[in-house]
């Protein structure tokens, strides 16, 4: 009986354990739940972004008016720029096939929810469409400090207007040429869209600076870029951008950026430094604009690689500044010279060694001057070794015409001087300033040299 019971017991216990195991084992390491992935909601846009902007108007008289949308207007657009780098703040740019618009939202960290590539569906009823100095904006009208203005949609209300859709929609910048960007006006379809410009570069002097102000003030900064044909445009960067302290790229290439306007001033806003693909060779194989160096007053110019040699007399080249457009330049004048009454003045400004590498090295520079008595000559040498200029052989390329006493000439361009014969060689280019002893100080010439360039 006992044995019998034992066997039954054993059998029952095996069954019980097997049952227990059957219950427990499937429970091992289940997969975690997860919310569904983002998809587009079942919302059909009623308007394009262009149509929305048209509700604000395209006439100059429409500028700045706050137009509150009172009807059901639904737009859909893909985020082309977010606030991840900090260059945009409480703002997104969205775009559809017809154009783009800046979306003002009173919340930080928007990129977490509305990253570049996400399609948004916006019910604009109750929102306000306007422009900020021509730049189209969608936000909310509010009275702040007594005056109506456009404000970001309060963070708690964002969900009432915006529905997020699918992620990773293609964001392709439209490639444009500088010529195809007319002076901004209301209704310019390029505004607030992502564009790409090719063959641009920063001014050489700016490549040693930073994108924006890195001081505590975190000021916004404009930097000009240009292409080899001399077209220029501003890149505007916030001091709060996480790349504010980065140095602009040295090469030449394409820039992808938001095309914006501040009145008639065209401005680009990059999303981060990966939008700047300046990896190719620059427009010029040698250039110097002196912008990277501070104004020296009467003290001699000191630019790395350059030689500022007082062959006779006491007149050095200095760095001077006149206008923001021109920037810094090299200047020489014997006007205050103590030696001039008795001594011939001869001062050389000799470039660093340049090894010419390619087919059409055309050398140009600009010069502004005033007063007639003195000369400035441009030379090239292949055997200058860094010492006294007289030890080298200098080939005269040109003499800058004298100025007159009445006014400074503009910065006229000189050259191009074809340096093709020197390809493959190490050369130095130089300027020599000469004023004869006894020249009246009131008549002695001043020369201002800038934008020294040698093409490839």
């Amino acid at each position, binding site marked *: 009986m006992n044995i019998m019971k034992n066997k039954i017991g054993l059998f029952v216990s095996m069954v019980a354990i097997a049952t227990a195991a059957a219950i427990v084992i499937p*429970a091992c390491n289940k997969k975690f739940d997860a919310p569904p992935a983002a998809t587009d909601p079942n919302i059909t846009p009623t308007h394009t972004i262009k149509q929305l902007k048209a509700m604000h108007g395209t006439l100059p008289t429409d500028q700045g008016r706050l137009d509150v949308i009172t009807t059901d207007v639904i737009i859909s657009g893909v985020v082309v720029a977010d606030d991840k780098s900090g260059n945009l703040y409480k703002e997104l740019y969205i775009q559809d096939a017809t154009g783009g618009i800046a979306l003002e939202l009173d919340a930080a960290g928007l990129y977490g929810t509305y990253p570049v590539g996400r399609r948004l569906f916006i019910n604009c009823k109750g929102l306000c469409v306007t422009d900020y100095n021509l730049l189209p904006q969608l936000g909310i009208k509010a009275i702040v400090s007594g005056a109506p203005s456009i404000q970001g949609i309060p963070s708690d209300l964002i969900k009432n207007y915006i529905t997020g859709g699918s992620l990773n929609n293609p964001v392709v910048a439209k490639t444009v040429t500088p010529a195809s960007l007319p002076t901004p006006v209301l209704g310019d379809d390029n505004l607030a869209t992502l564009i790409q410009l090719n063959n641009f570069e920063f001014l050489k002097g700016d490549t040693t600076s930073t994108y924006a102000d890195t001081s505590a003030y975190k000021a916004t900064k404009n930097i000009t870029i240009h292409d080899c044909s001399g077209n220029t445009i501003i890149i505007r960067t916030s001091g709060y951008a996480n790349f504010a302290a980065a140095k602009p790229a040295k090469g030449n290439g394409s820039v992808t950026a938001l095309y914006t306007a501040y009145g008639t001033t065209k401005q680009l806003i990059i999303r981060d430094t990966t939008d700047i693909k300046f990896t190719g060779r620059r427009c010029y194989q040698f250039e110097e604009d002196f912008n990277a160096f501070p104004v020296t007053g009467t003290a001699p110019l000191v630019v790395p690689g350059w030689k500022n040699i007082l062959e006779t007399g006491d007149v050095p080249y200095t760095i001077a500044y006149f206008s923001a457009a021109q920037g810094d330049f090299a200047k020489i004048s014997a006007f205050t010279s103590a030696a001039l009454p008795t001594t011939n003045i001869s001062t050389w400004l000799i470039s660093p060694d340049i090894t010419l590498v390619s087919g059409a090295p055309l050398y140009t520079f600009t010069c502004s001057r005033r007063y007639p008595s003195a000369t400035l000559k441009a030379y090239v040498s292949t055997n200058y070794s860094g010492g006294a200029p007289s030890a080298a052989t200098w080939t005269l390329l040109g003499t800058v015409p004298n100025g007159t006493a009445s006014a400074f000439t503009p910065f006229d361009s000189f050259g191009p001087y074809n340096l093709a014969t020197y390809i493959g060689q190490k050369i130095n280019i130089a300027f020599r300033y000469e004023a004869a002893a006894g020249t009246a100080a009131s008549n002695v010439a001043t020369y201002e040299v800038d934008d020294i360039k040698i093409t490839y």
Partner: protein
Amino acid sequence: MLCLLTLTVVTGMAQKTEKKKIAKDTINRAADSTEVEAKEEAADNIPIVSLDENDLGDGSSQNVSSMLTTARDPFYSAAAFNFSSTRFRVRGYDGDNFSTYMNGIPMENLDNGFTPFGLWGGLNDVLHNKSLSIGLHYNTTAFGDVGSTTSIDTRASKQRKQTQFGYAYSNRNYTHRFSLTHSTGLSKNGWAFTFSGSRRWADEGYSAGTYYDGWSYFVGVDKKLGKKNLLSLVAFGAPTKNGKQGAATQEALDLAGTNYYNPYWGYQEGKKRNANVGRTNQPVIIFTHDLKIDENSSLVTAASYSFGERGASSLDWYNVADPRPDYYRYLPSYYDDQDPLYQKLTDAWKNDESVRQINWTNLYTTNRSGTETVNGVTGHRSRYILQEAVTDTRKLNFNTVYNVKVDNNLFFTAGGSYQMLKNNYYKQILDLLGGDYFVDLNQFAERSYPTNPNANQNDLNRPNRIVGVGDRYGYDYDIHVNKAAGWGQGVLKYNWIDIYGAVEFSNTQFWRVGNVKNGLFPTNSFGKSTVYNFNNYALKGGFTFKIDKRNSLYMNMSKMTKAPFFENVYLSPRTRDNVQDNVKNEEIQSVEAGYVVNAPKIKLRFSAYYTEFLNQMNVMSFYHDTYRNLVNYAISNIDKAHSGLEFGFETKLLPTLTLNGAAAVGRYYYNSRQTAITTLDNDASVLSKDLVYSQDYRVGGTPQEAYSLGLNYRSRKYWYVSLTGNYFAKMWMDINPIRRTAAAVDGVQENSPLWHSILDQQQLSNQHTLDFFGGYSWKLPKSWGLKKASFLVFNAGVSNILNNKTIITGGYEQLRYDFMEKDINKFPSKYYYAYGINYFMSLTYRFY
């Protein structure tokens, strides 16, 4: 795979042991009981920490395992002590599924179901008579909970006649403990008395800034009237104050250079002052009448009353900077790591202790700067104060249990109980910190409703009230809970099988009474709320199949409903009486089966269980500094499924050498998609209603797998040593449900690293500990002239001998989450770490 493996081992064991020849039980019981005492004393000294962010000192912090006793069950005795360092919860259940009775009275809190162990802390000497009913097994004192039901008999006549004086020294919660206990035993004329008292304190506990200051007292009187009646009265209390340890982010811990960094204290005039002090003083009086009606029946009737306060202090402030040193904006990580401030703050945090601790001087200076006139009072208006959240409890219990043996095979039990609880919740000012007065205003409401002049009034009945030390302010409300229950149980016992069935019906009512009229909710903050009424039933039944005298097999089942706890129903009882949308009963269904061997040379239990909890609710609150407000998350439809295997054994390798082992392999899952409703404390409108994608997330806060293996040597010379190794796995941080909603990952690429960082549940690393216990019981020689048998008992325990300081015992995902930016590192999880090597030594002098 692991589950399978365990099973194989277990079945193998079971078969083997059956064949073993049965030897005489030779355990040295004297040494055994000494060890039990040592472990219980050790358990009494396990740190109590807050387990969640909104622990307002309502006693929700507790260590479930400490309610267990060194029952003869080999699994439970391991779970009770060896697993306690990682806050192991039996079967992963919440604390409200374990109940404790003392002298016939249910001791659990009606507000959250937890057993308030602290009420009898330090009184170990009178708590030795315990019985434990495991899982769904029947017992004769109560219907019982799904986890376990413990009965403690502290009646004077049940205490062993003896006098003992003890001293203990430890580096855990307290440093010193003195205790004195005297029990007279039952005298010839039917009286028995027990007196016990203890003093426990630590000037500084294991973590910096913590301290402990506790007294305990116990008086028990029994009078036997005739042969049938035993009247018992016990009264006890344990007034305690302790400076707490706060959880901190790993960043703060790393910067401070220790996992025991405690943000709760700061120097004040050269002395460490802790802002977060817990205080309890809730005496309990129990009257018990034990009537032996006849040989076959008995009636135990008990009534109890407990009253008193528990409080939790913390800093409070009004329109000034957050005084907490580890506030997230004060940490380096608030800044970009390229920002110069990042490095400056890192250096300051690392090298300057005053930066990472509370700056009390600064709080005093702020309070003393400038005078202001409010409501006719001119003086320094305190901006910072030390406040205490107080729970003042009045609890009345009545319970009666009738047991009858109908015949040799049929046993019947019936019982009834009535419990009444009134808790008064309020805040009071402990210290104005140098100021002259504080104004009872709601600064959050002031900012939210600048145009409503009443909004910022905490009490419209007494607007702009000037408050000082000892005054109530902020909120003040009562919760009433009444619960009536009746139950019956029948047990059929035969040689080969026991079968039982039990049923319970209960009714629970609760309501809120507001004592102040909040300016934001003038219509539903003051006075009595709706009475919420819940009718519940509980059924259970099972059988034990006795294969032979030593081997048995059991299976039990239970199905019950449970009234929700009020704290999971009221959205913000501090300000108003709004409740969750759909208030309904929780349902629990559970099945368990097991195999037990109880032989002299081996004790073994293997069991498996599956339990479902359905329709649970929870309310969580936290301060959100963008909303500048307390945010409340009301979570409902919380289902959980707990399944697992338990295995424990104890076998004698030698008459003096025992090998014991235990394994708990569980899988505790959230088994539903929960609903989360977000509201603000200051606003009745719903901010959002979200579906929580919580299916199959792990229930956190306990290791789901725990193993121990120990060797125990018990000399015939009355000393013993034991060494136990423990291993813990599958420990998960409990989830913040709000981070598992579609809104939380809105705009995030599925399966991207960011997606995973938001959704993935953090698994804590597996851990191990090594613990030692040893003791010696010395019977003092009679030649010393001692009239009575006298013993000197020495016990020592060293836990975590390997000094593992990386064991996270708890913590929480911060409830705050940046839905826009979605960077979880902005508000990272906070952790508590288990102590490194820690010890406990005690010396007891005892005579009979």
